[in-house]
């Protein structure tokens, strides 16, 4: 396979965290590793600080809602896209979050860029990032109720768009 850096990362990850890796998927040379939620911070720290791997750039964080998707047990997922400048390679780390316990560790202590991205996911999906310095809404008004990117939230909303109780002046 002509993607050795990614595989090297995978091999190292497997050796260091044998119990935390749930699944590994490869699609067109991009590797996605599904891990246990509890091991997120230690795995991320390892990937960032390991001398050989150096995944020092958090490219993006995404939230996913798997409502009514067959074959997926947990409702939400958070996907971290890492990039290593040293090896010029990418790695996706995926963790599932259940509807019952919506909290997950914040990676803000490792990458400061996680700040607004985690706030965005909290805003639109309602996933709670533990350890985030100021977890509040970014896009929607502060008094907004609900998390509109969830699949069970109707597209037209719940009447927010026709509420015009604005202040005078």
């Amino acid at each position: 396979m002509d993607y050795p850096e990614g595989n090297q990362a995978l091999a190292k990850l497997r050796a260091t965290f044998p119990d935390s890796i749930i699944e590994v998927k490869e699609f067109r040379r991009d590797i996605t590793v599904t891990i246990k939620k509890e091991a997120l911070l230690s795995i991320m720290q390892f990937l960032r600080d390991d001398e050989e791997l150096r995944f020092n750039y958090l490219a993006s964080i995404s939230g996913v809602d798997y409502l009514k998707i067959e074959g997926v047990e947990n409702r939400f997922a958070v996907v971290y896209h890492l990039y290593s400048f040293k090896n010029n390679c990418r790695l996706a780390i995926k963790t599932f979050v259940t509807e019952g316990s919506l909290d997950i560790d914040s990676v803000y202590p490792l990458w400061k860029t996680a700040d607004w991205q985690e706030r965005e996911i909290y805003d639109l999906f309602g996933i709670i990032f533990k350890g985030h310095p100021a977890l509040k809404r970014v896009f929607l008004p502060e008094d907004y109720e609900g998390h509109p990117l969830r699949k069970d939230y109707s597209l037209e909303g719940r009447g927010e768009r026709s509420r015009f109780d604005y202040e005078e002046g």
Partner: protein
Amino acid sequence: MGLESRLGDNILTTVADKFINWGRKNSLWPLTFGTACCGIELMSSIASRYDISRFGAEVIRFSPRQADLLVVAGRIVIKMGPVLKKIYDQMLEPKWVMALGACATSGGVFDTYGVIQGIDQFIPVDVYVPGCPPRPEDILNGLLKLQKKIERDTVLPQER
């Protein structure tokens, strides 16, 4: 104004109407509230090719206190609603509002939780310009329509 209370509805006040309306319609000072691609078309109609100054509306002001035409060009989301209302409230009378494009008029294709389905739900709109986005010709046509409307205004109050 004390003029009309003494004179009533006679030749002087109708001439005053005509004169003041002529001045107002030919020197509209727009405040461009551009939030989307309609704003780009608006810029195009202001620039040299379409040249909105042919109709006397080239003095663009970004302060509501110095403008009398609020051009809402683009979608207004629920977070922007109070901002737009505040800007409208800060404009001095007489003032007019142009809803530019499908989004400001009705929400357009954005039938979603965040987009207000027409700004006329919270501020009065004088002229709607259809299009997605409208061409500069449409914008100028809207301006001419608004000028026609201003022409018919009565400047002096009819009764006190």
